[in-house]
């Protein structure tokens, strides 16, 4: 290799390596080790599987996890239902001129940050929020309906913060879908519904799958929306981890739960990929 190239190579690779090693690999190794440790009576750390055992022994832990899992799958599917028509509209219906402007509009909430958008939803959904005040104004209700701090408000928050991550990959596959494929199907006698289910959806499957993986991982690992918008009954697994670290100061158990979340959700993604016949390499394209 040319000497100048080599210098450039190191200049470029060093920050990446530092980032990976210092901020991702080292903390994970540390957490991994501490997840297998408990403190004995003398206050020393000793090897133990108790942290992992606690998850399976204590009903509240794995029930919370199953609850979180079910919601995450549900929210992912809801996100797909919302995102697909939007992606289709932006790529196939609107003229190219407006499509990029509208896509930019979609991005705006992302610039504001999750926390701020969630406070925005609190203003909309609160007892004296926009929706309740409006319903009162037109006389549908006398007393406000409780929208905030329920499963509904949590789902809205999760959906809102993740929908873009579903729209973008679906848009990128739909953009490569040649309109002549749709015309060809129509020419061969396919109804609108058949075109949609036999051509458009199968064609955009790689985008749908990658969008679903991102959204599922975002939702199952999210903390802010369930914590702020969710009610007392909607306990999220990340909140258990938070409690371990910051309320009960049981870092070892928190580390173990963190790893369980990582491993189980990865396994679920892998199983889903296998079941849908998609390949990770293709999805990544």
């Amino acid at each position, binding site marked *: 290799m040319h000497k100048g190239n080599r210098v450039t190579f190191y200049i470029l690779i060093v920050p990446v390596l530092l980032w990976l090693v210092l901020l991702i690999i080292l903390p994970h190794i540390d957490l991994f080790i501490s997840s297998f440790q408990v403190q004995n009576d003398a206050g020393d750390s000793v090897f133990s599987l108790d942290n992992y055992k606690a998850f399976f022994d204590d009903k509240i832990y794995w029930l919370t996890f199953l609850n979180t899992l079910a919601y995450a799958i549900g929210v992912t599917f809801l996100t797909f239902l919302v995102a697909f028509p939007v992606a289709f509209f932006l790529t196939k219906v609107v003229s190219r001129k407006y499509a990029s402007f509208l896509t930019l509009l979609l991005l705006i909430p992302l610039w504001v940050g999750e926390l701020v958008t969630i406070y925005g939803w609190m203003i909309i959904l609160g007892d004296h929020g926009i929706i309740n005040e409006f319903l009162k104004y037109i006389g549908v209700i006398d007393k406000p309906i409780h929208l905030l701090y329920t499963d509904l408000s949590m789902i809205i928050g999760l959906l809102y913060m993740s929908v873009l991550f579903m729209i973008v990959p679906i848009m990128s596959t739909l953009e490569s879908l040649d309109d*002549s494929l749709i*015309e060809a199907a129509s020419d061969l006698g396919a109804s609108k519904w058949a075109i949609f289910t036999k051509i458009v959806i199968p064609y955009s499957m790689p985008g749908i799958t990658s969008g679903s993986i991102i959204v599922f991982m975002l939702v199952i690992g999210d903390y802010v929306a369930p914590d702020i918008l969710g009610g007392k009954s909607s306990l999220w697994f990340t909140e258990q981890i938070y409690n371990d670290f910051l309320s009960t100061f049981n870092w070892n158990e928190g580390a173990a739960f963190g790893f369980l979340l990582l491993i189980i959700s990865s396994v679920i993604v892998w199983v889903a990929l296998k079941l849908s016949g998609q390949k990770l390499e293709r999805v990544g394209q």
Partner: protein
Amino acid sequence: MSKILEVKNLTKEFDKFTAVKDVDFFVEEGGFFSILGPSGCGKTTLLRMISGFIEQTSGDILIKGQSMTGIPPENRPVNIVFQNLALFPMMNVYENVAFGLKRKKIEKNEIKESVLSMLSRVGLEGFEKKKVTELSGGQRQRVAIARSLVMKPSILLLDEPLGALDRQLREHMKIELKLLQKEIGTTFVYITHDQSEALVMSDKVAVMNKGRFEQIDTPQNLYKNPKTAFTASFVGESNRFDIKRDGNHIITSSGLSFIKDGLQNEVTQLFIRPEAFIIEPAQDDKDIQQMNIKVKTILFDGSNTKISALSEKNDEILISLPQNSKFDDIKEGDTIRVGITQDNLKCF
């Protein structure tokens, strides 16, 4: 022969311009009809109106005597082979060809039978399980044609399907398509900007320019007796001159003079085919108008070799070299005598 497709005074206006103007023609059952024109002449718009993707502004399209106005593409008895073929990439060959039949809710065994027999007809036996992305250009072509033909359309529309192929394969597919059409007997309406495709394959060719049909004729007539200046220049090669008429004399802008009897109208353009020139004709032949030319260069191209020459008035002239070795001694810089008969002077 009955008329399977009739197009009556068809016009399509877009916001700013008229893509198809008052086009009127019919196609006989079992025929191979080509629409030949430069890009942007409106031929694709015409095809999309026949297939139903665009609605005409005025006029009518009749298939087997029935008006197609208001009938959506999925219900018209025509199928189209798209320019880019539009094969479904997520399906294999069998699923692609079976797609249309499945939409008709035909029994599975029947579908299988039709698909397999169609695939063997286009020479793709044993390819059922292949992905369309694994096929060669020619094979993809045949899948697209099989996918349309399996629907047993009254008319098969083809939108420049050979455009994306390389030259050799295109030459081969031209012959294959013509033979396939003869064998199956389905009416083909073929769109192209390639005059050789149109001339080789078709029974009849319509030359289209700026939204209008210039001439509808057999390939032979189109070549030998073009009716308009556009047809003369677009179909085959020609030497073109701007001219003025003075009685039975026609004089080019450079000053060459020919005699042409029987001209009635004002004419402005003269076309002469390269092969219409006779090299070194008998000097005393009164029917052949003769002139001297200076050979600039010889454009060797096998059976299609030509001489690029200058006339006495410095016009560039292309002259075909006959296929015998009689004129092999012609060199650059030679002055030779060439002649032309009156009927080979095409004036417009």
